[in-house]
């Protein structure tokens, strides 16, 4: 694998639902980067992520995941990524271990890799003591953590998360953030959307701000600060949103 290949490259991405949801979006995320995509409600963040993960087909533009074209070779592209939506994709009648067994099966992970990884993830996320319960009885935080374990079971090169910290208590949020940072430290790439600007400010290497389906600002926190002469990320975000 060429290390110079970007983790994600979007060129002229468009998607219309009556009105443009994503409108000629160009985006490049490097390997090993923690990238935060910010924007107001309805800006097109979730649509962008769903396009990237192959859940939606673009009207125009290209999506490359680690050099693989999502439209031309969706299975190969999907094999390299994992997606965690804001509502965890779980089965209420499965137990955590069974859920991980199923997800590992979907990604074709070999048994000798999947089983210890599942145990490690459940242990890391403090879910081992709940391993014999159905997930329908789990709290929001436990569900989110299990979904994250599912996303990590095949050790994806690119991890895409939509509002992963919504509804989590402080302890669960810390565990998720630690796991994401560990993933990046190992060379993985993380792209997340969040409304919690403090999370983007503290975790992300680079931040992209999207409005009406277009990228209106991008850079490190320092670069964005220089551009907007703002103080905190919140000030900068509000400044950019207010601009015509």
């Amino acid at each position, binding site marked *: 694998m060429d290390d110079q290949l970007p983790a994600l490259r979007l060129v002229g991405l468009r998607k219309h639902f009556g009105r443009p949801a994503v409108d000629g979006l160009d985006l490049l995320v490097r390997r090993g980067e923690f990238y935060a995509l910010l924007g107001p409600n309805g800006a097109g963040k979730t649509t962008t992520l769903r396009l990237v993960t192959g859940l939606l087909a673009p009207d125009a533009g290209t999506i490359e995941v680690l050099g693989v074209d999502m439209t031309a070779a969706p299975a190969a592209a999907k094999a390299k990524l994992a997606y965690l939506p804001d509502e965890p994709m779980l089965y209420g009648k499965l137990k955590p271990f*069974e859920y991980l067994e*199923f997800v590992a*099966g979907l*990604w*074709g*992970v070999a048994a000798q890799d999947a089983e210890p990884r599942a145990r490690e993830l459940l242990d890391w996320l403090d879910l081992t003591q709940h391993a*014999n319960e*159905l997930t*329908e*009885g789990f709290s929001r935080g436990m569900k989110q953590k299990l979904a994250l374990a599912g996303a990590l079971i095949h050790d994806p090169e690119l991890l895409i998360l939509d509002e992963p910290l919504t509804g989590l208590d402080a302890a669960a949020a810390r565990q998720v953030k630690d796991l994401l940072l560990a993933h990046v430290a190992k060379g993985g790439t993380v792209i997340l959307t969040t409304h919690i600007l403090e999370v983007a400010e503290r975790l992300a290497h680079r931040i992209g701000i999207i409005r009406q389906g277009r990228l209106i600002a991008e850079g490190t926190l320092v670069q964005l600060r220089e551009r907007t002469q703002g103080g905190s990320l919140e000030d900068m975000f509000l400044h950019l949103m207010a601009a015509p």
Partner: protein
Amino acid sequence: MRLAPGSVGWLLRHELRLAWFNAAGGKAADGRRRPGNMALGLAAAGCIVMHVASWFVVRQLAGMPGDDPRILLAVSALLIVAATFMLSSAIKACVVVMFERSDLDLLLSSPLPSRSIFTVRLLGVCAGTAALYLFFLAPFAHAGLLQGQFRWLGIYPGVIALAVLCSCGAMLLTLGLVRMLGARRTRVVAQIVGALAGALLVIASQLHALTSRQTQERIRDTVLGLVQREGAADNPLWLPAWAMLGEPLPVLLLGALTCAMFMLTTWRTHRFFARGLQLAASSPSTAAGKPLAMPLRPRFGRSLFGTVVVKEWRLIVRDPQLLSQVMLQILFLLPLFFLIFKRADVQVQAIGAGLALLCSSLTGALAWIALSAEDAPDLLLASPASQRTVRRAKLAAAMLPVLGVVAIPLLWLAVRMPAAGLVACLVVCGAVSGAGLVVFWCGRPGVRTNFKGRGKGGFVMNVLELGNSLAWGALGWLLSAATLGQLDTMRIVVAAGAASFAIAVPGIAWMLRSRSM
């Protein structure tokens, strides 16, 4: 009329409005909820047809003697059948009222007295239980009124009293189960009891096939002897039947009994109802921390096909609500199995047709659960797994249990009567494959909890499933008859037609797949 907010009348109006929109639900272009035109149109057409039909029936029965014991017996039998089904639907309604209504938190946190909430909820169950029966039976009362045969008006108090008595019984049973078993288990047990109550009569209707002719004659003679005995008509057991036949005193007595039962239920149990609601609202649907049965141990490294099949079976086996409804269909197979294993004079036509119909229906239900009611479709779509393999595995997960259930009886039949066994195997395989393929190609996405209402979401799928069942059922009957040498030109023509239709159904489903999926 303005009703005081928070009063029983006000709450009842709210309840009826919700029930009305749910029963005839539709949405205007601007998103406002309003009764669906199609539903209203169909209901109106059905009402007119029923009134026309009942007009002729009432006129035909004008000279009928009201005190004939056989009429009393027929009406009583009708009432027993209706009461069983009413009890079944009322238990299910009580489960919905206690466990599945999303407005419980709102009501419990309001200052409304628990008695008002309980009274209105119980009235709602009563109204829902009576509605269907009144729809079909009230036209007879109207026709009787117009033709001057006023005793037909007894239908109204009869049906309403029966519905109220069954609803009160169902509510007391549900509350009793909550006290004995706790909220979580009650939900499961009540659903199963409700389903069994409904199934009992269908099973009982098969008894004639399971009993000898002498036994049937003995039972008939005994019952008729009891009814025709001197003074037998005055037995209080006939009270509901007399009320239905419009006798004033029985109507009054039944009305008083119904009112007393309703008041006793609401006065004595409203506090426990509120407590039951709180228990239900705070109870998870499974016991946290409690190890559950593990039908298939987790094993990493299965093939994609195997992984999906195992996942679907786990989800079905662990959903008591779904399982009780699916098991109910298996229950209907039992009389057929009895015939196969026990009776010397095996009725192969009935077996062939019955197995085809029931296996088709069972496969359709399981295929809908596996294919259409996927809980995490985005997870499957976002994975690199072949969607074709995933869907085929889901289809197999639906078909294999059905074939497994009928395998041994079919083998036994094949040993006893090879030709009939072979025919039964053929029609079962055809019916199962056809039903599975219809859902595979025409099933629309749905949610598991909407299993009972799955038909509303896919008209095409429903029609094709029905066509598949009927075609294979007819083929099963005719081919089984052929193995006994009952073959003539007409039967050959009908069998050829049924076979063509059975083959055409999956073909039509395949052609419609892009439009309906």
